């Protein structure tokens, strides 16, 4: 097949639109890792629940799509806070990272992933559900047609990440979140209610995952098993960007998205999912802490 720049441009745009979604899920994973010192393996299922929340609101309750997006974020955020309070807190209280509790947390995350998937299966069944929303005609850029849903996905993702950046960087609450992430003991001595802020971090991360689910729904439909592959890609994005780095998660997501689309287009479309992990290996070989990671950071 002949090489043409229009197609190259299209592949990059497709890569960015899916990449920002990876980035949002990766951002949540990084946020939890920074705040709680744990890797949350059930984050893919939170993303799946978010997509279903959005679907139910938009389709069954006829709530407009933007409101369904916000509603799903709120519900998933609350759900995340509940999960953290009921299941994870005892473990995270005993430490994260390489401690025994940290290992327990990883196993608990796997268990939570299976449990959430089964709960979703009982509620919504195994069939894929269409999440069709009418956003109008695709945008024509020369020979490339870009559906409105892709543009909306990219715009909303950047907006949400910008808001998160603003919240963390320029508000008092954000400062407290960063303090908790940096050192819980000192944050506690400074008068910050650390458990509440840990819940807040978890809720925020889950809300971001839900937003990613609602945004991807119209592109790929919604089903119980959708979380697994997204989690893998988001992990790849988080590691490429540097685990624990928020701008790194976004950049990692975009790089993973572009890399896998270009790989699928110009190397072999049959092995699309491999490229994300090839990039991951490449980055780890050159810069083991990821693009934005801190070399000497030790989590324990």
């Amino acid at each position: 097949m002949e090489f043409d720049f229009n197609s190259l441009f299209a592949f990059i745009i497709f890569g960015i639109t899916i990449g920002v979604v990876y980035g949002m899920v990766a951002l949540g994973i990084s946020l939890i890792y920074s705040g709680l010192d744990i890797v949350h393996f059930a984050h893919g299922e939170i993303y799946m629940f978010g997509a279903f929340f959005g679907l139910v609101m938009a389709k069954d309750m006829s709530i407009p799509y933007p409101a369904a997006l916000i509603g799903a974020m709120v519900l998933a955020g609350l759900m995340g806070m509940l999960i953290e309070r009921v299941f994870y807190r005892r473990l995270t209280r005993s430490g994260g990272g390489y401690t025994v509790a940290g290992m327990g947390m990883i196993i608990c995350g796997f268990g939570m992933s299976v449990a959430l998937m089964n709960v979703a299966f009982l509620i919504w069944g195994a069939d894929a559900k269409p999440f069709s929303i009418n956003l109008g005609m695709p945008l024509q850029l020369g020979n490339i047609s870009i559906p409105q849903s892709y543009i909306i996905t990219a715009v909303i993702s950047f907006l949400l990440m910008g808001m998160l950046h603003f919240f963390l960087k320029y508000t008092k609450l954000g400062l407290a979140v960063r303090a908790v992430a940096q050192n819980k003991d000192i944050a506690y001595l400074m008068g910050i209610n650390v458990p509440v802020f840990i819940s807040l971090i978890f809720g925020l991360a889950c809300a971001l995952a839900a937003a990613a689910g609602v945004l991807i729904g119209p592109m790929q439909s919604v089903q119980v098993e959708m979380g697994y592959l997204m989690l893998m890609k988001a992990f790849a994005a988080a590691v490429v960007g540097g685990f624990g780095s928020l701008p790194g998660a976004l950049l990692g997501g975009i790089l993973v998205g572009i890399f896998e689309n270009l790989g699928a287009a110009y190397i072999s479309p049959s092995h699309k999912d491999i490229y994300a992990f090839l990039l991951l290996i490449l980055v780890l070989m050159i810069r083991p802490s990821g693009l934005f990671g801190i070399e000497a950071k030790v989590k324990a």
Partner: protein
Amino acid sequence: MKRIMPSQHKRAKPFQRSKQMKKGNKLISVLVLAGMMLSAVSAMAGEIRIGITMRMVSENGQKYGQMMMDEIDLINKGGGINGNQIVATLMNDECKSDKGVANANKMIFQKKVHLVVGSSCSSVTLPIVDVTAKAEVPQIVPHSTNSKITQKGSAWVFRVPVSGRFYGGVNAKYTGENIGTRIAYICAADAASQGDCEKMQGQMKSQFGASPVYVAQVQEKEVDFRTHMQKIKTANVDGVMIAALAETMARALVQSYEAGIGPEVRRIGSSSASNSPVPAIAGDAAKGVFFTAAYSHSDKRPIARLFNEMVRKRYGIHAPDHDFSQAYDLIRIVEIALENADLELTSSSLKQDRIAIRDAIAGVRNYQGLASGPISFCSDPAPVCRDGNRTAVLIAYTKGGEKYELEVLARVTMPMDFGL
């Protein structure tokens, strides 16, 4: 002489008593066990055991299995087969070959079934064919279309659905004559889709000398087809064949329109396009998709109308697809075969009963049911004898969504040895 202290004596007595009790208990246990075994054997004698393994992870998948169980229940309520009741075991293989093989082994060696029914997915049916061939148990296939299933040469396997080799021929003929020969292919990794893709490409080559313009192998549950669609769009094709399981196909159809491939480029579906999730998920993108199947709910025959009505009432399905009709036909064929089989149904006659059932299925000729054409089997363990139905219906969606509509474009009966 050693004196036994009272305390020691007291301790010894219960020990002796418990020893006697243990002996008695053992005897009773042995008798109870023997009784249970005898009653189990006598219960097993006089019953026809059928093991069914299917993909029951989706709502429709569960209903196909439920329909089979309901039909067997109705046979039993009507007096069974020559006075013998059918005991059916329904298992879920989730369309995973390892689970399917485990189910088949369990049914054959633990449940001691006389007949294996399954599976829905070709990738599961293919390894089960080896299991049933080795264990010498008859197997009848309800939904799987991959042509290799009957090409393995097993004397124990029979297929109710239309083989992929017939579907490929009909699809290719219609495409080449009415659409064009510049065709792009998206082929999912499951065995049925791989088979459909391969047969279609082979037929396009042999009938029209046309090579594929673009071929992409994708994962069974691929979600992102945008790269492929962009490449297909620039390749200026006449048609796109999407061979995948229902949900994957629906996603690909939607994304083909999102990529800007207009309706003038016809979408050709593999046989799973018949499954209701395709129009339900794809919505308007399903309109115009054509495919070959073994049944259309728009069939005007009285038997088809009654069947549609029954499925609607019993399972709440607006338009039953060909997997419903094939499940129903399979039970009718099994019923006919079992009635004709000379069965002893004792604990020692399992092997000869299995042979009798196999031979009785091989003796089914011109079964006229819901299927697109008559279903016939014979004893030679070759595809010409074991691919029962060779009439494919060419169908197109005229409306997508939950309340989808279809039209029958053609009904074609292929020669028995076509595509071999």
